[in-house]
């Protein structure tokens, strides 16, 4: 899947140019209006803080990142397992899907306040549980759809083979659902990181990126806070790129989910 260098350049130059232009604008605005750091730190100051605190940022990122990763893995596993159950048992599907739709509409992360109560004060489990829940519903909705929405021609074909339901599941529904799983992962990966942060706002242990950002803001060290924000964005980006890379590696013939009819 190699692209000619000219085409890679074509794809990359607009975002690079936009990014550099934005940073320059930001830097000059701070200098020109003599903005104080508590109002808006300059990119150069943020970068300085980032380099100075790199080890601390890395530590905090590991905590939040671990929460996000565990929630992502467990949530995906449970979501996939449950979607098989939903495909098999119609009643279960009818029960779960209105609930999934409703929960999709609510700010579900507020449940962390409830979870914090149910576990000990130093536990990371409430955050991991929260991420698991968020990821679970994203994966469930998408994979269940992938198992369900199979081309009618394929189903007729399998019926003409007198194939059992299990064979249809194995040979048609599951391969059909794989692109849906990747669509879900590309949404769930950054969502897991964001949920991990947001879960840290409700108290509990203060080791993650979210709480560090809050901490730095509360002592008006905005440049440091934004250094942690940079770390947070990098973490989210890493998760998203990992999901994209996984899709590229596991999709046969290099056709992405968005390219299918």
């Amino acid at each position: 899947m190699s692209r000619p260098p000219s085409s890679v350049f074509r794809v990359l130059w607009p975002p690079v140019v936009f990014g550099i232009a934005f940073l320059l604008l930001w830097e000059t605005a701070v200098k020109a209006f003599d903005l104080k750091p508590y109002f808006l730190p300059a990119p150069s100051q943020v970068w300085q803080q980032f380099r100075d605190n790199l080890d601390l940022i890395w530590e905090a990122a590991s905590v939040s990142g671990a929460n996000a990763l565990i929630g992502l893995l467990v949530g995906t596993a449970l979501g996939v397992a449950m979607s098989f159950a939903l495909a098999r048992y119609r009643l279960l599907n009818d029960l779960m899907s209105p609930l999934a739709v409703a929960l999709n509409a609510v700010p579900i992360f507020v449940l962390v306040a409830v979870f914090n109560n149910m576990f000990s004060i130093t536990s990371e489990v409430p955050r991991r549980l929260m991420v698991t829940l968020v990821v679970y519903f994203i994966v469930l909705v998408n994979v269940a759809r992938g198992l369900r929405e199979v081309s009618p021609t394929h189903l007729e074909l399998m019926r003409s083979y007198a194939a059992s339901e299990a064979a249809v599941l194995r040979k048609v529904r599951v391969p059909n659902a794989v692109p849906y799983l990747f669509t879900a992962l590309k949404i769930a990966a950054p969502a897991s990181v964001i949920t991990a942060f947001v879960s840290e706002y409700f108290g509990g242990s203060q080791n993650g990126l979210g709480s560090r950002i809050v901490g730095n803001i509360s002592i008006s060290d905005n440049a440091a806070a934004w250094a942690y924000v940079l770390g947070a964005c990098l973490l989210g980006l890493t998760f998203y790129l990992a999901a994209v890379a996984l899709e590229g590696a596991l999709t046969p013939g290099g056709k992405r989910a968005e390219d299918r009819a």
Partner: protein
Amino acid sequence: MSGGLGRRIRRVWMFVLSLFLVALVWELYKWLGPQDGGTVFEWKLLPRANDRAMPHVWEMLSRYAEPERRGFDTPIIVVVLQGAWFSFRLALVGFAMGTLVGLGLAILMARFKVVERGLLPYLVISQTVPLIALAPLVVSWGGKLHIGEFEWPRWLSAAVLGAFLAFFPVAVGTLKGLTSTPPASLELMDSYAASWRQTLFKLRFPAAVPFMIPALRLAATASVIGVVVAEISTGLAGGVGRLIIEYAREATADPAKVYTAVFAAALLGMVMTGMVVLTDLVLMRNRPRETST
């Protein structure tokens, strides 16, 4: 269309039933689970099942009738609904602002491919920036903003943060819709020597509506999330986010209290999304409907 109505009623029933089952599982765990938390393969995975950590479902419900603090008269349900109403109005403003910004960006990106290629990655990244960092920025900027007689009210910061989360799904969904017009229709408009603006309003936008509806649903939820997080991080009083934090602090003394606010926040989200769904039903009455979840 009795079939459709019957299906909808059944879905509502199923939803109620599923809530009942969740409550059942909750109580079952309370009955069977370890009172002080437990371990699964040496990990402290099991939550505490005692009454202070996990109040009974009926305790949560009956709490609504009791007042917020001892000595006051108004039952907490009023307090909590008022908070939800406060946050609802903020979310509405945020939703409106976010939708406008999202639409504008989508049109810009659809018009100039260069803008799409350059800007879209940053729009994606912007959503990974924790709101907790943006909130103080918005508040301090707002504090400095004086346009004539206009003073930036504190609640507007929360609405702006709601808009920040809402604009993204609108921008992405609308962009997808605007760029997925069938080529044959575009050629038709070309043959009428229509300008890009005319094509936009007469063809691209109407064709994009089926893509915009799910995007607006996401934006509704996002605006609620943004507002609630903003309330928590800016300490804005009056909304349901603040209530959740406050009540969570009293959880050891009054365990059921925080649930009243949590359910109100859930209700808020559902009402917000429900409004979008309702608008969709009204607007799309005459179009062939595609089945969705």
